[in-house]
C-alpha cells in the first residue's frame, strides 16, 4: 500500500517535471525559429529565466524519490540507461550554463555559441526523455541480475523514437504557448501561429503514439484487465487528456493564451499519468522475461523509510507548490523591452 502511494507520487513528480520544464525545453529548442533579432532572443531567455532553475529541481526530486523509494529501480534504470542519461545530464549542464552565462558575454560570437548550446541542449533532453519513457513502457532488456543487455542504439527502436518525437512536439507546443503568454507584438504573433501549426503535428503524433502503444506495449492490459480498479483512471485520465488536447485548439482560436497553456499542462500531465498508471505495478518491465521485471513490490524501500519520506512530502510539497506559485505569479506579466534594461536581465 505504502509502496503504491509512492508509485503514484513518483508518477506525479515526473508529470510535474515535464509540465514545468517542458516549456523551457520546448522554448529553448524553438528559439532559433521564433526569435529574429537580439532583443527577441533576450525575450525568449527572459521568458524562462526566472523559472528554469526551480523547474529543474522537480527532475532532481523525481530522481531522488526513485533513489529513496525504489532503490533497485533507480540502480537498474540509471546504470542500464547509462549513455542516454549521460547525454541528458550533459545537455542539462549546457542548458543551465547557456541561460546564465549568455548575459555575461560581451561579444556576439559568444552569444551565438551559447544560443547553439541552448537549442541543442534543450532538444536533446526532450527527445531522450521521450525515448527513455517509451522504452520503459515497452520494456527494456534487463536480465535476472538487473543487468541491462541492450545499448544506446537498441533504445532507438521505432517505438522509442516515436515516443521521443511525441515528447519533443509536446514540449515545443508547450514552449510556443508559454512564449505567446509572455510576449507581445511580432514575437507573440509568431509564437501563436507556430503554436497552431505545432498543435496539428502534436495531435497527430499523440494519436500515432497511442496506437503504437497498443501494438508495442502492454500498457492497455491494466486498463482492460482491471476495469473496476481502473474505473477512475480509465475514465478520468484519457478523457481529461483528450479534452485538454482539444481545448488547446479552442483557446488558441479564441486567443486565450493562458488557458491554452494550462490545457497544454493538462495534456502533459495526463499523458504521463496515462503511461504510469498503465505501467503499474511494474516500474521497469523486462522485455526478456516478465519475471525479471522490477515492480513496486520487489524494488521498494523499507516501510519505515517510505513512511518518513511520506511525512516529509506531505509537509513540504504543499509548501513548495505555494512558493513556486508565488514566484510564477510575481513574474507572470508580459515581458516588456524595459525589462531587458534591468539588473541581471537575460
Amino acid at each position, binding site marked *: 500500500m505504502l509502496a503504491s502511494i509512492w508509485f503514484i507520487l513518483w508518477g506525479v513528480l515526473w508529470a510535474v517535471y515535464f509540465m514545468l520544464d517542458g516549456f523551457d525545453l520546448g522554448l529553448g529548442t524553438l528559439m532559433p525559429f521564433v526569435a529574429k533579432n537580439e532583443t527577441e532572443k533576450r525575450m525568449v531567455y527572459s521568458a524562462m529565466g526566472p523559472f528554469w532553475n526551480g523547474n*529543474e*529541481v522537480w527532475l532532481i526530486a523525481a530522481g531522488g524519490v526513485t533513489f529513496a523509494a525504489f532503490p533497485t529501480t*533507480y540502480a537498474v534504470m540509471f*546504470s542500464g540507461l*547509462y549513455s542516454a542519461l549521460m547525454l541528458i545530464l550533459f545537455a542539462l549542464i549546457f542548458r*543551465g550554463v547557456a541561460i546564465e552565462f549568455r548575459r*555575461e558575454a560581451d561579444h556576439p560570437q559568444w552569444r551565438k555559441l551559447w544560443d547553439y548550446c541552448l537549442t541543442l541542449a534543450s532538444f536533446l533532453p526532450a527527445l531522450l526523455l521521450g525515448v527513455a519513457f517509451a522504452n520503459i513502457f515497452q520494456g527494456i532488456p534487463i536480465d535476472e541480475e538487473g543487468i541491462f543487455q541492450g545499448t544506446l542504439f537498441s533504445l532507438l527502436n521505432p517505438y522509442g523514437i516515436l515516443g521521443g518525437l511525441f515528447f519533443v512536439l509536446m514540449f515545443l507546443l508547450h514552449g510556443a504557448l508559454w512564449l505567446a503568454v509572455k510576449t507581445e507584438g511580432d514575437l507573440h504573433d509568431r509564437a501563436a501561429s507556430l503554436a497552431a501549426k505545432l498543435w496539428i503535428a502534436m495531435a497527430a503524433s499523440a494519436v500515432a503514439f497511442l496506437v503504437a502503444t497498443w501494438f508495442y506495449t502492454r500498457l492497455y492490459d491494466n486498463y482492460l484487465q482491471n476495469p473496476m480498479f481502473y474505473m477512475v483512471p480509465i475514465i478520468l485520465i484519457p478523457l481529461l487528456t483528450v479534452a485538454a488536447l482539444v481545448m488547446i485548439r479552442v483557446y488558441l482560436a479564441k486567443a486565450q493564451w493562458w488557458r491554452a497553456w494550462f490545457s497544454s499542462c493538462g495534456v502533459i500531465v495526463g499523458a504521463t499519468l496515462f503511461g504510469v498508471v498503465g505501467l503499474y505495478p511494474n516500474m521497469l518491465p523486462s522485455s526478456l522475461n516478465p519475471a525479471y521485471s522490477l515492480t513496486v513490490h520487489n524494488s521498494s*524501500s523499507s516501510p519505515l523509510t517510505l513512511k518518513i519520506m511520506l511525512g516529509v512530502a506531505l509537509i513540504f510539497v504543499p509548501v*513548495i507548490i505555494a512558493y513556486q506559485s508565488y514566484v510564477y505569479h510575481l513574474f507572470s506579466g508580459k515581458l516588456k523591452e524595459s525589462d531587458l534594461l534591468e539588473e541581471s536581465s537575460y
Partner: protein
Amino acid sequence: MDVLMLSRLQFAAATFFHFLFVPLTLGLSILIAIMETKYVRTGDEEYKRMARFWGKIFLINFAIGVVTGITLEFQFGTNWSRYSQYVGDIFGSLLAIEATVAFFLESTFIAVWALGWNRLSAKAHAVTIWLVAVAANLSAVWILIANSWMQHPVGYVIRNGRAELTDFLAVVTQSYAIHQFVHTVSAAYILSGFVVMGISAYHLLRKQHTSFFNRSFRMGLAMALIFSIVAVVQGHMNGAKVAAAQPTKLAAMESLWETKQGAPQYLLVVPDEKNQKNRLEWGAIPGALSLLAYHSTEATVKGLNDFPEDERPPVTLTFLSFRIMVGLGLLFLLLTVIGWLKRNKLEESPGFLKVMLYSIPLPYLAAEAGWALAEVGRQPWVVYGVMKTSAAVSPIAASQVMISLAAFVLVYSALGAAAFYLIANHARKGPEPVKVQVEERRD
C-alpha cells in the same frame, strides 16, 4: 583501466569540481544577506551596491554549482548502482529530503533575488537572499548527514540483502554528522571570507572604491577569523571522532605503521607506502598523537601494520591531504589574526593586502584536501565497515565510463575556465558607479 577505477576517477572529478563552487555559495550568500540587511536597516546605498557587486560573482558561481550538482545525484545510479541498491533505503532518502526541504527553496528564490530588485520592496528583497542562504546551508546539513552515514553508519540493520533504516533520528543526529557539518561549513565560510578579502585587497591596492572595499574586506575578515578559530578548535575534536569511528583513517593520515603506546606526532614525515614504513620521521612531539586521538598522552594508537592489508586506505594521499589541510588551516588563522590587527589601516599595509590577494586559491586547496582526506581516507570502504567500494560499482562496460570520464574532463575544464574568467572579470571591474538619482521602487 577497469570500471571500478574509471568510476572512482569520474566520481572524484565530478565531486572535486562541484566543490570548487559550493563553499562560496554557502558563505557568500550569508555575507550578501548581511549587506542587504544593513542596507534595509540604514538606508546606506553603499551596502546595496555591495550586495549587487558581490551578488554578480555569487550568481556566476551559483550557476556552475547547480548544474554540476545534478551530476552527483545521477552518478550514484549510473556508476554505483550496487551501492544505490544496497543503501538506497537510507542514503537515497537523505538525498531526496535534501532536494525537498532545501534545494527547491534555494533554486526558486535565487531567481527572485536576481531579477526582483524592482519588483519587491527592499525588505522583501532582502528576505529572498536570506532564504537562499538558509536553504543553501540547510542543503549542506542533509548532504553531510548522508556523507557521515558513509563514514560512520548508524541506525540501520542488514536485512533483505541490504541496509535498512531502523532509527532515523540516530542517522540525522549522530555527532559525527554534526562535527562534519561544523567543519565543512567553517571551511566554506573561511573560503568565502578569503575570496571577499582577496578581491577587496586588489582594489584597495589600487586605491579605488576604498570605502566600499574596506567595508567588504572587514566583513569577509570577520567571517574568516571567527571560522578559522572554529575550524582549528573543532578540527582538533574531529581527530578524536575519526580515531573512534575510523582507526584506519587515523593511522593513514598520520602515516603510523606500528602500533604505539604514547604515540608521537612528527613535524616531518616521508611515508614509504611500498615498504610499509616511513622513510623519514623527524621532530617528534611525544604523546601528541595519543593525546589528539584519545585525550591521553599514554594511550595506545593502532598502526597500519596491525590492520589487514586489504582494509588500509592509500597512505600517502591521505597523509598529504591531512597535512595540507591542517597546515593551511593554521595559516588562515594567522592571516586573519594579522588582518584583525590591521583592520583599520588596511591601505597602509600593501604587503599584507598583496598576501591576501594571492591567498585566494589557498582555502580552495584546503577544502579539496579536506574532502580528499574524508573520502580517500575512508577507502577501501564506500560505507565504512559495511560495504567495500569494489562491491559498489555498476555492472557496466568500461568503455562507457571511459567516454563519459573524458567528456567530464573536457566539459568541466571548459566550464571551470569560463566561470573563473567571468568571476575574475567582474571582480576586476569593480562595483557599478554611484547612481545620482535614487531608483523608484514599487513598495
